[in-house]
């Protein structure tokens, strides 16, 4: 019961983040919404591990948290510089 309440709240919040990702006017809105969506996915995987009585899902949540961060940084860098291999030290604008 307790975990079902948490899962429902997280699912509704994921739907709201998805709305913003679909209708965001700029690309930065979409990146922000997808970042929140990934963080909520981490929580949903954890809660599902407790809900199903299989806490091994926490390992998946741990890996998802790290990959979500790396993915957000990579997409932000690609949108800003249009180049994944941009070296930040040579121009004044700097890296992200």
């Amino acid at each position: 019961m307790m975990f079902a309440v948490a899962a429902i709240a997280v699912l509704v919040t994921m739907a709201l983040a998805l709305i913003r990702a679909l209708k965001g006017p700029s690309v930065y809105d979409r990146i922000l919404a997808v970042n929140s969506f990934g963080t909520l996915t981490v929580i949903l995987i954890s809660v599902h591990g407790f809900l199903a009585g299989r806490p091994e899902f926490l390992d998946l949540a741990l890996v998802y948290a790290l990959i979500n961060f790396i993915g957000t940084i990579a997409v932000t860098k690609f949108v800003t510089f249009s180049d994944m291999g941009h070296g930040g030290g040579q121009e004044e604008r700097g890296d992200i």
Partner: protein
Amino acid sequence: MTIVLDVLSWIGIVGGGILCLIGGLGLVRLPDMYTRMHGAGIIDTLGIGLILVGLMFQAGLTLITAKLVLILVFVFFTSPTATHALARAALNGGHAPEVEDDGIRLPIDSPDQENMTPQVNVSRETDSSKT
């Protein structure tokens, strides 16, 4: 003892769920990208943190709690970093804030970015003169 832990878990999970919903509503309804970051920040800090603390009370002192603490630490470090990188990328990309603060226009908030471009040029000139 079990009922105390259950009550603490309920408080954490319900509070975290409510804060997640508030953050999601802010993500949809706030007017600007930089203000929507505030809603995302509510989800990333207190919503996630309270739900994880509620799960920790259910897990007890086991390896599961250690993994939950690791998830909490990772989210607490990576989420502000990602938000900072996104805000900086948006400002570099010329995405000006739309919200005015008490009628005072922000220095970057000009219709054709007259204020932003000379600042970038000045900093570039000073940097090239140094080197």
